[in-house]
């Protein structure tokens, strides 16, 4: 059993948990993920390793309550345990050599997924600009943490409630046009956001890495459910990714595939809320 050592509410939908998992903590690297099951009859869901502490033997996850499993997970408290916790899965982020300046773009919850990458690049001595976008100022995540690992932080909100209205793509475009020479852009968030960031950076010829959050079951390359088309070839997000070249990904197909279980998902969600 995998014990919850720390729980923190980051905003009304997003929670952080530090989980006891010493073996995984020993091997984890930025860009990898775990798969968990909350209880015996539960679904296997993937979550990014948001932070890891090999000495303490812990893995930090940050998750948004969007459906039955994440809501159920959110009801657990410190001292409770998870049924299963598997990892570290996926390939660790691999950054091209000679990167001097990078922009890390996080969309909503994607900010939490992008954070370990910002941290890793910062550790490697890369100049990091973090751009994170949220719907409104109450949803802003990890602002302090981003400042610690970035040379510049730009937080945008869709409604302008933090005084900086706009989308992350606008902010990124601004930076580029005002003369910032990024060698690398990492974009993590909703598929539609990653699609538009990739379209933008393609115009400027800036290498762009995105993280594909396909629907997964095993996370070991066995089910093929997580397949994405990259440069015309079928890849499995769990073992070939989750990071891919944003200029090569077929986002439209990925968006269609992500909606595949919409109906049963919302049914499960309603059943769960009904029980509450």
């Amino acid at each position: 059993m995998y014990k919850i050592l720390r729980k923190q509410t980051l905003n009304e939908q997003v929670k952080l948990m530090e989980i006891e998992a010493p073996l995984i903590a020993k091997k984890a690297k930025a860009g990898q993920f775990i798969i968990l099951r909350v209880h015996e009859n539960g679904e296997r869901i993937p979550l990014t390793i948001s932070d890891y502490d090999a000495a303490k033997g812990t893995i930090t996850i940050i998750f948004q309550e969007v459906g039955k499993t994440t809501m159920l997970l959110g009801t657990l408290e410190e001292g409770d345990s998870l049924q299963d916790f598997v990892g570290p899965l996926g390939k660790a982020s691999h950054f091209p050599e000679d990167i001097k300046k990078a922009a890390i773009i996080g969309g909503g919850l994607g900010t939490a997924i992008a954070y370990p990458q910002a941290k890793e690049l910062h550790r490697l001595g890369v100049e990091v600009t973090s751009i994170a976008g949220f719907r409104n100022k109450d949803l802003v995540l990890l602002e302090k943490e981003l400042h610690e690992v970035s040379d510049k932080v730009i937080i945008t909100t869709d409604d302008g409630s933090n005084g900086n209205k706009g989308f992350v793509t606008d902010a990124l475009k601004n930076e580029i046009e005002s003369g910032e020479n990024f060698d690398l852009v990492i974009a993590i968030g909703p598929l539609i956001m990653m699609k538009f960031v990739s379209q933008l950076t393609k115009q400027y010829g800036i290498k762009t890495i995105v993280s594909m959050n396909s629907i997964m079951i095993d996370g070991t390359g066995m089910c093929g459910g997580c397949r994405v088309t990259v440069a015309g070839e079928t890849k499995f997000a769990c073992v070939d990714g989750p990071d891919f070249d944003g200029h090569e990904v077929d986002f439209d197909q990925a968006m269609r595939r992500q909606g595949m279980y919409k109906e049963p998902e919302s049914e499960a969600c309603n059943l769960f809320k009904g029980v509450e």
Partner: protein
Amino acid sequence: MPNMQKEKTKMPEQEPKVRARNFEEVALGYTEEMAINEANRCLQCKHQPCVKGCPVMIQIPDFIALIAQGKHIEAYEKIRETNGLPAICGRVCPQEEQCEMLCVRGIKDEPVAIGRLERYCADYAIAAGVEPLTCKCTLGKKAAIIGSGPAGLTCAADLAKEGVDVTIFEAFHTPGGVLKYGIPEFRLPKSLVQKEIDSLVDMGVKIETNMVMGKILDIDDLKEMGFETIFIGTGAGLPSFMNIPGENYNGVYSSNEFLTRINLMKGYKYPEYDTPVIRHKKVAVVGGGNVAMDAARCAMRLGAEQVYIIYRRSETEMPARNEEIEHAKEEGIEFNLLMNPVEILGSEQGDVTGIRVIRMELGEPDASGRRRPVPIKGSEFDIELDAVVVAIGQSPNPLMREATPDLKTHSWGGIIVDEETGATSIEGVYAGGDSVSGAATVILAMGAGKAAAKAMLEYMTKE
């Protein structure tokens, strides 16, 4: 005087119409009277040809004689001398190509129903609560097993019997491999698989689940942890696709995804279990093996109105067990033979709407000895569907191989081993089952696990 009844004693089954809509076991098993009647059909041949057909050399006439005398527990013990998973093998082994193919009774009439008798005494003994074999891990040697399918379980059991301290590492949250995630409940009840696994645990074998080896631990880590020998039984889990247009539409599954959702994650019991499975109306399953039959029969049980098997050769070439083909037909699965998919059709929204197939004819035999299917030009036509399950084969999972550069493998992914011992290119590391052979059978995986256990024991005890 043996019973000269020409046909195998029939085994009671659920009515096809009824069972096609539930996940309960199809074949119900012999009663004691039926088992004894069938056991009496055995001639007790001196030269025992049937035994040669059994990859783990079960003493077939001996156990059958015990059943004939009503000594069912003793019969089970007799089987267990060489086979640790009789309740499973009795259900899923391709007996018609193995022991029963060589049975002397089979020359003129139907062979003795060896598989059904094996199942009978295993079920009898399990229901009676037989004592597990005991082991005390007294040898002072540690072995690690990677993967808990039939290959890994058998290797573990044979080592534990000899006093080795065995730990199994399994990637999934539950042990059993294909027995748990692939073969459906109606053919192999999961509680039964679990019972066989529990008896290993009773013997002292430790099972660590949620351990994706090659990611969380690698061979060097295991050696550092004091495991003197390591057995890799990671199976053939990597699904093949057809590489035709439309394969990523919503509603196209690999057989692994489809069967894992249903069997391992109990999707058919959704929402009691959280993992959803979509209940499609018209489903095509591409392939002709056991996996294809299982996927088709699962689709039917989920409530499909029409389920097709699409296979590019004729029924004679189908690799599935005869019994499964018969059962599938009885349940109303339609066989579209000599047909090959060329494209999957979909809607604007990306959902499957159909499949375009081309008719095939059989040409000259190919390397596999089966007649090669050749497309008939211009014979394409479309079938309306809302789901396609691709069951055209699996290859070994790349995780261990990627994490272990010294491990020699074939270009198609299979681990290269010494055939007799299962020894790999790394000292102290052995492998067997589907990870070596590619997708094969439960009993062959078990045979490989046994052979490796023997070699591992020799390796650990040699001076």
